[in-house]
């Protein structure tokens, strides 16, 4: 039986929960801060697991269903841990017109996964973006936070292969 009177204890003694607590305090510690808090959790931990959602929901006094609803409604939140490296392929209009579909095909041939998935060895996650706003440089790809413009299939493949361990 959860105790609604006092503040719940964080899932672990990890210092990162202090950041989460700080965001909750800053946004008033109520349901209005839910999205901001989930942003902080994702930034600190990398993804939102059930434990984290339960903790946030209980702390902000919102039903777990609402926290889960928000976490799944917005594309930015992910419930699964990502790979060591992340590759985001932009599928905005300008990139699409300039052939981002070919980049997706090249990625699939190289890594054998679909967008949104992570390779079995946990090395690379591939995501797609609606638009990165780098339309002047279409087609654009983000490799681990770094935007690369005017990417072609060969360049993408070369970059992805660098991330795959070769001894396996």
């Amino acid at each position, binding site marked *: 039986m959860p105790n609604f009177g006092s503040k719940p204890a964080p899932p672990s003694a990890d210092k990162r929960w202090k950041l989460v607590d700080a965001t909750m305090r800053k946004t008033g510690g109520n*349901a209005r801060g839910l999205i901001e808090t989930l942003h902080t959790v994702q930034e600190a931990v990398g993804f939102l697991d059930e434990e984290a959602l339960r903790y946030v929901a209980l702390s902000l006094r919102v039903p777990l269903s609402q926290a889960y609803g928000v976490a799944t409604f917005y594309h930015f939140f992910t419930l699964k841990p990502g790979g060591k490296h992340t590759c985001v392929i932009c599928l905005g209009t300008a990139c699409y017109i300039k*052939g981002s579909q070919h980049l997706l095909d090249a990625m699939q041939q190289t890594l054998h996964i679909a967008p949104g998935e992570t390779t079995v060895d946990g090395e690379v996650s591939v995501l797609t973006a609606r*638009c990165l706003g780098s339309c002047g440089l279409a087609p654009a790809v983000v490799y681990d936070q770094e935007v690369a413009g005017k990417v072609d299939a060969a360049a993408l493949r070369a970059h992805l292969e660098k991330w795959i361990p070769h001894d396996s």
Partner: protein
Amino acid sequence: MRRRCARIWRNGYRMTPEELDEIARKEREAQRSFARRVNVCVAAGCLSCQGDALRDALTKEAASRGAEDRYHVKGVGCLGLCSEGPLVSTSTGQLYQRVSAADAGAIIDSLEGQPVERLLCSMDTPFFRRQKKIVLENSGIIDPERIEEYIAQNGYHALVKALTEMTPQQVIAEITNSGLRGRGGAGYPTGLKWSTVAKAVGGQKYVVCNADEGDPGAFMDRSVLESDPHRVLEGMLIAAYAVGASEGYIYVRAEYPLAIKRLKIAIRHAERFGLLGANICGMGFNLHIDLRLGAGAFVCGEETALIASIEGKRGTPRPRPPYPAMEGLLGQPTLINNVETYANVPPILRNGGAWYAQIGTEKSKGTKVFALAGRVRNTGLVEVPMGISLREMVFEIGGGIPDGKQFKAVQTGGPSGGCLPAETLDMPVDYESLARAGSIMGSGGMIVMDETSCMVDVAKYFMDFCMTESCGKCIPCRVGTYQMHRILSAITNMSATEQNLRLLEELCDLVKHTSLCGLGQSAPNPVLSTLKYFIAEYREHVREHKCPAGVCGKEIPEKVGA
């Protein structure tokens, strides 16, 4: 300068008009003390071509010549021509394109000698000559992370003028006279919206800036926020004063980390200078602005969904009325405007509504920032007076279609807009003309397509977007977009019939007229406009099982990019 600022911050200084002038004067003097200035674009486009490394290399080169106090190297916002980045402009009047860190020495050497010919980018082209910069006037000139530079460009003078010389009613009258209309896409008269919120009865009012630029192919708001964040804050401050709000939110996409970072810096600086917070300029006017990060939902650009998202809920829209102007955030009267709308406010107050109303067409006043992209030579950010023709946009400013290809269509307004063919090229770009042609102004994305694009495939692309982004609250949008996408997929697979085409048209009509919010109501636009102008292409897919552009139903060739 720095010591003086420290004093201001310590004492919680109340900025007076004289103080503001003093800061502007000092900053201009400091800038004049440099013999030469070098501006390096560090907006997102050029950053992704290592613009920051270039800036550091230039700073180092200047230092290695012992000329740090003569040459001033700084990072600035967007210089416009993103396709030729990284860009560097110098106070000797040159613009250099595709500069790499290895060129830094040559550029520093050229400051008191001959320009570096091989990197020169001509400024005497229609891309630069045809533009009229109001929103982007500081873009590429000031360092977006320093408030003093904004103040030196007459920044916050409009706010001080409004607070000290004008009543809220006079501010609204000035905006109404200017004829400014919402730049988010729908084009609702800004003055009218402001006066509705001002008249609304309620204890706490809010101002909200919609910076959830979700349209794929649009990056105007991102550039404004990255290049000139104080401009948006000043616009919000003036709006809050006019409508009587004391709390504000900027709802910005989490996908724009640089814009978020610069906004946070701008808010902190404005607070330290007493231009944001409590008792601004000692006039008893308060405004606190907070950031709220979007989390990747296109529907949150719709104002009621945006409000739900600021409240920490799922971003689903609700029926209007009541409009947010009466019942918005937490049930209180709320003013919601787009980034570009707010950015237009300070120059209108500085120069007067009549000045602004001279620019543009009869019903669409002022300028509009467009993000030009796709199959066109010059891609980047341009600001042009309303009423310019599409032909001028594509062939003069855009420099035409590369690789000897033929122009096919220009797409405006993102997933809510339409594709306009060559016949419409002479049409003026304003709210009414675009709507008549079956598209919308939208937030300002303009994507040019050539003969290698299949219009059915493009319609399918946008429908896929709307289908995935539909929030699922109302059935016409949730189910209708799915069914339309299925038919469009069948057409591109060459398995559709004439009957499917008729059904597609019927569905467009149904979804357009029965959906709850703008997302569903405008989702059929890309299909309707392509059906209107490119019906022959649809028929060829259906009757002859052929794709004239060679995109659909066959193996995709290896070569990509341009």
